[in-house]
């Protein structure tokens, strides 16, 4: 209750008004429209290998605008099968914006426009006939700020399976809830108080609850926006283990500010800077021999 109200006031500040029907939202404009202030300034070309063979998701010439603000500039990038791609870059460079494009969460933001193509298994997810509900069941997301439902811990995790009808009975649902919480490393802490409010957990616990909630649906692609920013090293370790395990079946995109984490969990790394995708490559290569000056500055801590 306490946390909930707190969270509420905290969030309403940056609240966004009316949302529009999701289908009519993104407009496809093949030609590039640049805002006035950066009209001359061409998007930086990407260094490295943005493409892989047989990708899970493929993004081509993606641009994102918040009204006049050009937040993502002509980004082309593949998300490979059964691997983890880490997205790094300074704050405000557009990592969250980009990752939110991958399951069309940007549709809910008024004034946000996405152009270009994003293909999931060869199918453009921004096509008219695509239904976002199954898309988001397939491409799950863990948000930057923990946002548990103001419901019990159990209900938080059970919600996704319930609406999708993943469990045939209560026992199966219990089973899903338990394994999801276990995999998110939260089970031992909450198993005695599943009926307590999700919002009564600590910040780090809430984040793990959100991870459990996401994996409970069994998505094929998981998008994680700084999932460990509020976690201690032990919990972080558990999550990293989880990511590693999930990778065997699924594809994962993770945004992180921790270079070590990126190095530990990911196979590929993408470096963003002011809306541009500067460099992509195998993680070892990026951290050992970055090719672009900006990447080098960033990973050696000389940035800024």
């Amino acid at each position, binding site marked *: 209750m306490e946390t909930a109200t707190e969270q509420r006031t905290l969030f309403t500040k940056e609240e966004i008004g009316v949302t529009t029907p999701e289908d009519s939202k993104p407009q496809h404009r093949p030609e590039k429209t640049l805002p006035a202030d950066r009209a001359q300034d061409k998007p930086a070309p990407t260094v490295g290998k943005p493409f892989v063979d047989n990708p899970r998701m493929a993004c081509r010439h993606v641009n994102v605008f918040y009204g006049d603000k050009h937040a993502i500039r002509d980004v082309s990038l593949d998300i490979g099968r059964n691997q983890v791609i880490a997205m790094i870059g300074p704050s405000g460079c557009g990592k969250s914006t980009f990752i939110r494009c991958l399951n069309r969460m940007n549709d809910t933001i008024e004034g946000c426009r996405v152009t270009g193509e994003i293909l999931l298994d060869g199918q453009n997810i921004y096509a008219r006939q695509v239904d976002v509900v199954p898309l988001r069941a397939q491409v799950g997301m863990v948000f930057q700020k923990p946002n548990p439902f103001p419901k019990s811990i159990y209900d938080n995790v059970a919600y996704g399976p319930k609406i999708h009808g993943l469990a045939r009975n209560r026992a199966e649902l219990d089973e899903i809830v338990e394994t999801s919480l276990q995999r998110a490393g939260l089970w031992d802490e909450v198993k005695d108080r599943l009926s307590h409010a999700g919002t009564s957990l600590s910040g780090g616990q809430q984040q793990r609850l959100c991870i459990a*909630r996401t994996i409970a649906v069994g998505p094929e692609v998981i998008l994680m926006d700084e999932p460990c920013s509020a976690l201690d090293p032990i919990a972080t370790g558990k999550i990293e283990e989880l990511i590693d395990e999930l990778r065997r079946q699924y594809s994962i995109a993770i945004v992180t500010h921790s270079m070590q984490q990126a190095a530990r969990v990911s196979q590929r790394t993408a470096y963003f800077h002011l809306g541009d995708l500067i460099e992509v490559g195998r993680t070892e290569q990026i951290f050992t021999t970055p090719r672009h000056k900006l990447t080098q500055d960033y990973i050696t801590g000389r940035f800024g």
Partner: protein
Amino acid sequence: MNNGKPKTIEIVQRSLVRRYRAERRFRRMGLGAIVLSLVFLGFLFASIVGNGYTALFQTQVQLDISFDPETFATGELANADYPRLIKEALYKAFPQVTARGERRALTGLVSSGAAFQLRQMVLADRSLIGTRRSIWLPADDDVDMLVKGHLSRQAGRLSEAQLAWIGQLQSQGKLAKHFNWTLFTAGDSREPELAGILGAVVGSFYTLLVTLALSFPLGVATAVYLEEFAPRSRWTDLIEVNINNLAAVPSIVFGLLGLAVFLGAFGMPRSAPVVGGMVLTLMTLPTIIIASRAALQAVPPSIRDAALGVGASKMQMILHHVLPLALPGMLTGTIIGMARALGETAPLLMIGMVAFIVDIPGGFTDPATVLPVQIYLWADSPERAFVERTAAATLALLAFLIVMNGLAVVLRRRFERRW
């Protein structure tokens, strides 16, 4: 930080005094405002209760009624001459009164409703016929006012002889105040001692039930549509402006609208709670819509993201997450609207609910009036005894309001506990 410049802590210390002073001032002002409003409220309550509590009691006269079989000889129990039973009893109690005019004055001490009470007793239990019973019957309102001290002995409304009889009855213990059940079990009446608020309470209940059943779902649905689904366009802006304007329209206008549309075009009955409820629905809708929209806007967008993120459809997001969170706010708006509807008379005037209605309404289409109308009608009646009953009816209105608000608080708690 150093080299001559004052330290931050010093600056903070200096401004601290000022800051705390402002804080204290603000707190005192807030406290003052609360005390002042409490004083006003206390004054209001004291004056209403002070005026109204005497209405809870009614002076009654104890008479030895003999249910003379002759009176019922015709066999028609309903139409027997019940007033005569009372007259006979009074004449027996005061054998010295014989002149015609005096006897009239004597019977004037007992309410004209007493005969109806006897009628009801006999209709309920035939075996009374032929027996002799000592029965408490309501006294006339003038006697009641005199006993309660609202009418001076010199007033002239009661003659010297009548005052003497009253004194005699009092000394025999045959004139006493009893709890005024009539006030809570009867409909309106032109005789204060027979008038009650039940008809108005039932009318208010039916009317508000219609209002609630129509305005809450309509209001919430409208708010949800406007807030969550409607595309931003000139049309939705226009609708929004109009809704906001409607909230400020004088309530009588809704009465005129109701007269023209519900009575005129649809041919619905006059004075009926269903029409009253519909008119009040028009009045309360804007309030509910505005409050509901504010409540919807206050739901954090992160909750919406969370729901959409696990693959909930828009409708599921709204029904499962947004509405439950917004419901307390919506209920608050609804209660404000309903409380306003409860106190309205002006729009009801146009559709014939400001009327003298004795029978207690048995349904949504029976003629009915509402509590504030009853108060208004009684306040306008010449009989002195209606003054205290007006205050009592006001108390009943307040009680109704408190019950309604209490219910809303309970409901709100229930929904709030869920998160």
